[in-house]
């Protein structure tokens, strides 16, 4: 199971907020089973035909196994702990600008309890034909055998769109999130993709900052037999400047695009120059 499937039952924390409400509707259109939403004080109401309850504990009556958190940044840690305590096994945090100390604690608390954390500040996970949790636009997907993992949002859609237009389709698309600390690394996702029978080819969309891509290259060398194609953004970014994402920053020579491209090339992974070029290397 690549994060979500037909048995995924999602509760949305903050379902009546702008983001929560909009993306709940989109997820339902995509086929996701959204079984409940949490907004304290609104128990008994419904939104997009989804029952609203006051707490995660009450939401557990609807037997969810995943949660999407769409509450403002100051309340994310509390919401995540509530979800962990309630017992869901996948938590996706949509919210941007969560302090990284909060994310660090959420991540470790979650992983000690075998809870998978996705995000914060990423577009979620989408499996065409099964389910999606998050905010990726429904219309760009076609079911297929290409798995995509990305540190970006819109750029992911751009690349997924180009893959779809090129005649391929997607098995699973995962957005890791643009923060310095997020729940999943490329290595985590590669493990899942390598074992996923639906996946034949893998696309990694990396960016400057950190060493996520370098570690992925090592892992590919030792453990991945499937075809991997990469794209790295931020080649033209000046050092020390935060390029939108808190995680996309070159610090004292660490996290440069050159280093990442070199790492991928050295293990036989082709790195596309432009987003549109990615499909070329999939054949």
């Amino acid at each position, binding site marked *: 199971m690549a994060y979500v499937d037909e048995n995924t039952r999602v509760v949305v924390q903050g379902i009546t907020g702008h983001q929560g409400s909009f993306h709940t509707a989109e997820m339902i259109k995509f086929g996701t089973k959204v079984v409940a939403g949490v907004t304290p004080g609104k128990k008994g109401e419904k939104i997009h035909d989804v029952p609203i309850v006051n707490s995660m504990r009450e939401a557990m009556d609807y037997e969810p196994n995943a949660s999407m958190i769409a509450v403002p940044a100051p309340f994310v840690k509390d919401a995540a702990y509530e979800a962990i305590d309630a017992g869901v096994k996948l938590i996706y945090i949509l919210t941007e600008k969560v302090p990284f100390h909060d994310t660090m*604690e959420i991540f470790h*608390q979650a992983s000690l309890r075998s809870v998978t954390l996705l995000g914060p500040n990423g577009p979620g996970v989408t499996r065409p034909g099964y389910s999606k949790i998050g905010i990726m636009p429904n*219309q760009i997907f076609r079911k297929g055998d290409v798995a995509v993992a990305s540190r970006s949002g819109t750029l992911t859609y751009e690349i997924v769109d180009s893959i779809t237009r090129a005649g391929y389709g997607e098995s699973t698309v995962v957005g890791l999130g643009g923060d310095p600390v997020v729940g999943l690394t490329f290595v985590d996702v590669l493990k899942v993709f390598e074992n996923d029978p639906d996946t034949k080819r893998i696309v990694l969309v990396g960016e400057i900052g950190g060493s996520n891509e370098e570690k992925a290259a090592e892992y590919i060398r030792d453990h991945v037999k499937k075809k991997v194609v990469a794209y790295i953004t931020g080649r033209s970014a000046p050092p020390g400047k935060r390029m939108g994402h808190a995680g996309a920053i070159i610090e004292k020579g660490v996290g440069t695009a050159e280093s990442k491209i070199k790492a991928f090339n050295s293990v036989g992974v082709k790195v596309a120059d432009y987003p549109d070029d990615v499909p070329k290397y999939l054949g």
Partner: protein
Amino acid sequence: MNLYEYMGKNIFRSSGIPVPDGYVVEKLSELKPFEKPVAVKSQILLGGRGKSGGIKFARNADELKDFTGQLLGSKIRGLEVKKVLIEEMINIDHEFYLSIALSRPDRRPIIIASAQGGVEIESVPEDKIIKRLVDPILGYSDYLGREISQFLGLSKDISKDFMSILRNLYNVYVGEDCELVEINPLVITKEGKMIAADSKIVMDTDSMYRHRDINITDPEKTPLELEAQSKGYAFVELDGNIGVIANGAGLTMATLDALTLHKGRPRNFLDLGGTDSVDIVITAFDLVLKAKPSAILVNIFGGVTKCDTVASGIASAKEKFNIKQPIVVRLSGVHEEEGREILKKSGIDAYSQMMPAIEAVVNKAVTA
């Protein structure tokens, strides 16, 4: 967000980390009477202040007044000195290095220490440095400090001081939401006390809502970047001539990269974010126009951000600001066709793919 030395030292002091006695002045009249030799330290967010003449040592009342007067209002490597820290001189016996930061690959805090302090940690040989990851759920516990203290070869008495400093420093790291807390040098004085002779604190910008008392203007940001920040945009000035507006940090970066690979020179990074408001697009144009580009590229992949909304924004901005520069637009995704129609009325033919738009804007910027 970088804190000034004196702010970091105030935090240290109230957290139980010993720092030299001192006070801050903004004008000469705030100087207290001279009592003993002091360091006169300009408060600027810059490494290597000492070498640039930003730190002086006053041995008498005249020097104190002279040096403070010289430093206040002066510029050091382009930065104006608005505040000066007057601080008691300490008798240094030995200098250590101590810091706590985030280790991104481990997603854990990392403590770094060395008995070779007072210099850049990058210049110290690896075998003279000790690094210890902290499990954030176990938290900091004394066994970590004991191991580090033994590595540093501290005596029993000093070790006690050090353990207390490290424990308190970890509390600062967590409590103040720091990306980095650094004491360099951490000093043993000739009197046998351990004291933080400098402070470097970098706070996580995303956490500032819970530290409202702290508000610093980033000296590395340009005035236009600061204006954009205050308006809620992720905006970076670059040194080219093509203005760029895109949606999503990754797509914006990819746009800059593609321009660069095509020998285009981007003037800026501007991420519209996930928006559905015409005004946000208009203000984005306002910012980009202030950077005086030769041409402007708008690259939108519509999802949450709808193509027609962006198109309306472009049309309004073109009229409102009477834009003369060529505008190249790429629209793809949600409400693409509607957007294209809107732009057509403003005389703009929108591309549906990214690469042709890149090529077009590079050509136009060269001709412009």
